[in-house]
């Protein structure tokens, strides 16, 4: 009853007017963060896809006569020490960094989802083992363990994906396990069980859709985290290799010129910040959208 009342108040029920129930699209449209974030994200993806077309120069083309030019009409973001056009490199960087962020998030998400769901659903010795494993992995600073794994396996993005899969699943496992523990005793699950649903069916068709939302919100924010991680690994010489126009590589290469040519490091960094803000907007918006009661 209390839910109905608050709902009525939200819809302007005090005036007595009966309004149409809001559709999903309506709710989405009124979520400013989500809409702004999604719009900008689509724009960003378009930039990444169309980079070869819209970039004014080849991101790898050297031009020593035009080295270290400050931003101008010819070179919007200036040029680096090898005369490469920074604006073109930043646009091409979107291709690499967005891809890295999205690829990185997939494996830990799936591993964590499966292990967490099974842990929460069955409990027992399996749960004990998984949760102790979670404790152990979380005893390490995330970055330190990722660095250590990449260090022994060799530098490069491929090994970063492996390291992230091995380390980052714990966050999702914990989240999903917690949600499954809450959901599995609810009536709809009991009902599905009474109807003779198999464990697998109950997990897939009934539990998963209800427990996955929080993880999706996390995953959205994590894409930004992995872009930051990839940049940091580049800085340490463990990530993407120069001359690739990865944003972290560009910041690192420009570091030697910070006293004379600030734009080399500053502008690729701004690209990371902007991408991060867009992803946070979507993350915050999604959190509001999927869980209105938790606002």
């Amino acid at each position, binding site marked *: 009853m209390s839910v109905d009342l608050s709902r009525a108040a939200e819809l302007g029920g005090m005036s007595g007017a009966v309004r149409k129930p809001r559709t999903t699209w309506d709710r989405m449209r009124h979520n400013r963060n989500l809409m702004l974030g999604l719009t900008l994200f689509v724009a960003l993806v378009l930039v990444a896809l169309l980079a070869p077309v819209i970039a004014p120069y080849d991101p790898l083309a050297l031009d020593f006569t035009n080295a270290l030019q400050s931003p101008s009409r010819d070179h919007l973001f200036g040029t680096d020490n090898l005369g490469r056009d920074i604006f073109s490199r930043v646009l091409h960087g979107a291709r690499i960094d967005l891809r890295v962020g999205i690829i990185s998030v997939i494996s830990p998400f799936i591993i964590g989802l499966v292990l967490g769901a099974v842990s929460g659903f069955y409990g027992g010795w399996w749960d004990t083992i998984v949760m102790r494993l979670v404790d152990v992995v979380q005893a390490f600073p995330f970055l330190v363990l990722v660095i250590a794994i990449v260090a022994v396996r060799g530098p490069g993005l491929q090994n970063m994906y492996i390291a992230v899969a091995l380390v980052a699943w714990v966050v999702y496992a914990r989240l999903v396990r917690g949600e499954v523990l809450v959901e599995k005793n609810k009536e709809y699950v009991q009902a599905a069980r009474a109807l003779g649903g198999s464990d697998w069916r109950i997990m897939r068709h009934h539990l998963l859709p209800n427990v996955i939302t929080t993880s999706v919100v996390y995953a959205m924010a994590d894409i930004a985290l992995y872009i930051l991680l990839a*940049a940091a690994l580049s800085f340490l010489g463990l990530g993407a290799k120069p001359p690739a126009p990865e944003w972290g590589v560009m910041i690192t290469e420009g570091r030697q010129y910070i006293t004379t040519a600030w734009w080399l490091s500053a502008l690729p960094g701004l690209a990371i910040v902007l991408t991060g*803000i867009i992803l946070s907007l979507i993350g915050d918006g999604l959190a509001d959208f999927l869980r209105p009661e938790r606002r």
Partner: protein
Amino acid sequence: MGRGQYILRRLVQMIPVLIGVTIIIFALIRAIPGDPAVAMLGDRATNDAIERMRESMGLNEPLYVQYWYFVRDLAQFDLGTSTRYDVPVSEILFARLKVSLSVVLFTTVLTILISVPLGILAALKKDSVFDNIVRSALMVTLVMPSFWMGIMFIIIFSVKLGVFPVSGYGQGFFGHIRHLFLPSLTVSLTIAPILIRALRNSILEVLELDYVKTARAKGLTERTVMTVHVLRNALIPAVTLLGISVGGLMGGTVITEKVFSLPGAGALLIDSITARDYAMLQGATLIFAFMVIMVNLATDILYSFLDPRVRF
């Protein structure tokens, strides 16, 4: 169950985690593609030297024997010998740890100094311009690559304004403070957003509670209500969160030490990678994990003092 027993139980719970951590560290070196002994000594090593390394690492023995040797050495604080410096790893590592711990400590202090006032003000002036500015600024610092922020700080404060040194650790207490300010600020700005947000939300939650309304109804001044009733309770989740953030803080330290050329354990860890000094890499990784475990333990114990309702 009393507090003493609670602390004892927490210590016992640490044992499986510590064992797990040593297994991961042990497995790390075995995950090197090819022969770990060759990797550790480099391509130019003689067959004799490689065989001696295999012998000392126990690589010719079965895995469980190798692990037993590893743990036995560890129990004697023997982290192996650095192939780069040719001295025991522990000797160099513990000397460098002082710098990292200073950064961690300074960062924690700065984080509290930044987060507590901003969190309180943002909550008290909810939805005001100030609140919105704080929240937007946080969104930005949260997604800044910390090494980039460090570089930007160097450009602005060291190169252009000349207020802080570009790099190094400095001499004497005040020298250290001056040199560690920018690195610590860099790390704390990556953690402060999470803390400010949590603090703001928990203050807003506590403000809605009945006992706060009662306190106000009693006619207590707003100041007394805030300090005695609201803050005390709202700070508890923030303390826990700060404890949890220490893992991130240590990761941040590793990067910042490289950016500001600080002679710390984090920089040592990174340098050991290029030098293929795997014993050092192992030791440094282990020390960082150990510090996180200790801080988590300390947070739990502190929490039991802060919140009398905690169930032992």
